[in-house]
């Protein structure tokens, strides 16, 4: 069966940070309008809209029911939400909407407004992922000391444990986490939409920040941001008319594994090494196969990895087969993953610098599209970008979205 070629023809995002001069619907509309203007389409040319965010953070259920008319109603809306990968799942929803042949032009917008939650950072939503499990465990007499140790030790949730798993598996040290965090902050300084921007930040700057809980420091971790990001998809003929260099979607995949750390109501779950990330390995293979990419390390020119915590840039760049298992820190030390390196990772500054959770995985796809289209401005990588891979993780590090973009449609 001949698959329909689909491309991103327009990208739009708000500045990410603490956005208190807009309400949620205006924030979403701003990104949606910027994407439509970038794609030079009017709302009437848009056939359907895919939208998503992590509902518990903003306190609004199905925000598009209130916000929808600001950028398109009456029109078909589809809400897709999958935790941290929401932005990537919304991006896949937009792709599938056009690839299915049901629609020709589709707008996909993802967002989050953490500052609308009274609790500091993103704790409302994050703690709430496992709230039922915690209630259940406390009801069965778990000790207060255990609860306190979780709240202090694993405040950052699954990722805190995962960092130690990965450091054992790869042999990398805390200094490599400092290096990744510093690189992200420097790259973010070249990205006007990023939340935390620190020109010429060094690993030593990061090393001076307080520990949250070993091995993660405050300097390592992502902020809780407000922000929205959107892309416009089009089928092949329209894409060629609307954009001189569309970003073609060559392959998508989003596999799920057993939840890490715990199951429903804290039942056992058979994942012992949280850094294995089998679903990311499978998603990458499937997406490369659909994209017709045989050797990712040669054919992929850059990647946007979803890395709210620095060990994840190293870990997931290995799981998407850009480096050997456990060896990404060598490429980091050799500067391969710098913005001007042979395999730039997260030239946008990544999730360490900007994390509006619903929007983050969409930003990875959007940033790769900008790089392929040559429209990334100050943080455009110097090398020619023919193929790029956008990654997202979510859930209890058991969801992964992979999107492979390129400068030519699949034949």
């Amino acid at each position: 069966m001949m698959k329909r070629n689909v491309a991103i023809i327009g990208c739009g995002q708000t500045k990410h940070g603490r956005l208190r001069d807009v309400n949620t619907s205006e924030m979403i509309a701003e990104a949606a309008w910027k994407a439509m203007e970038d794609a030079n389409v009017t709302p009437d040319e848009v056939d359907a809209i895919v939208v998503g965010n992590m509902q518990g953070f903003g306190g609004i259920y199905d925000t598009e029911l209130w916000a929808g008319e600001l950028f398109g109603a009456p029109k078909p809306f589809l809400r897709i939400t999958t935790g941290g990968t929401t932005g990537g799942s919304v991006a896949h929803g937009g792709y599938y909407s056009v690839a299915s042949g049901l629609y020709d032009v589709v707008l996909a917008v993802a967002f989050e407004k953490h500052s609308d939650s009274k609790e500091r950072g993103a704790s409302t939503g994050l703690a709430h992922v496992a709230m039922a499990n915690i209630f259940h465990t406390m009801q069965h007499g778990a000790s207060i000391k255990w609860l306190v140790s979780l709240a202090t030790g694993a405040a950052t949730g699954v990722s805190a444990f995962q960092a130690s798993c990965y450091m054992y598996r790869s042999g990398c040290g805390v200094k490599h986490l400092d290096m990744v965090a510093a690189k992200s902050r420097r790259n973010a300084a070249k990205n006007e939409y990023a939340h935390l921007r620190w020109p010429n930040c060094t690993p030593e700057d990061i090393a001076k920040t307080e520990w949250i809980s070993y091995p993660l420091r405050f300097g390592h971790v992502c902020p809780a941001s407000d922000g929205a990001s959107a892309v416009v998809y089009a089928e092949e003929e329209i894409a060629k008319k609307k954009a001189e260099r569309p970003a073609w979607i060559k392959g998508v995949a989003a596999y799920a594994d057993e939840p890490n750390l715990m199951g429903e109501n804290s039942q056992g779950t058979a994942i012992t090494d949280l850094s294995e990330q089998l679903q990311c390995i499978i998603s990458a293979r499937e997406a490369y196969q659909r994209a017709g990419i045989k050797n990712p390390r040669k054919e992929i020119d850059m990647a946007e990895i979803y890395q709210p915590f620095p060990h994840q840039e190293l870990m997931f760049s290995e799981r998407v087969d850009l480096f050997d298992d456990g060896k990404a820190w060598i490429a980091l030390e050799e500067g391969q993953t710098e913005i001007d390196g042979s395999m730039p990772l997260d030239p946008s500054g990544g999730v360490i610098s900007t994390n509006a959770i619903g929007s983050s995985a969409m930003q990875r796809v959007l940033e790769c599209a900008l790089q392929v289209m040559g429209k990334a401005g100050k943080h455009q990588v110097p090398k020619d970008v023919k193929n790029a891979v956008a990654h997202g993780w979510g859930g209890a590090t058991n969801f992964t979205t992979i999107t492979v973009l390129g400068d030519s449609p699949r034949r």
Partner: protein
Amino acid sequence: MEKREITQVSGMPIVAGFQWSVGKMMERFIKSFAERKILAAKCPKCGYTYVPPRLRCGKCYTKIEEENLVELSGKGTLIGYTTAYVQLDGKGNFLDLDKPKMVGAIKLEDSDSTIFMPLGEVDPKDVKEGIKVEAVWRKETKGEIADIVYFKPAR
């Protein structure tokens, strides 16, 4: 289907609180309540007039700026209503009201949106679609949504 015994898991008294920034347009709208003024956003292109005001027209997608704000009279027409005999308590339970409350769908003069407001100083028997209503303000308005206490039939 094998039945597996279940236990009820009761939550701990945790309430997630929210503080939604309303944005520039809504801030002007709410603050103008202090002077007992109701502002609406009139789309410069198609004229559709939104209350509360907004930054983009949903009918013709034109941008709406602060200079497109117009002041409404505070009078309107009742286009729909219901009498409430229960009220949600925020925890998911419907509590019986000792005295029924009226809720009205009101189209303010010179605006196209419908706003949903409590009705007061009225006997449910006399309420009919089409009657004229007007806003009743708190004695001491402070620029808050609660400044409008209810709408009552206009004299």
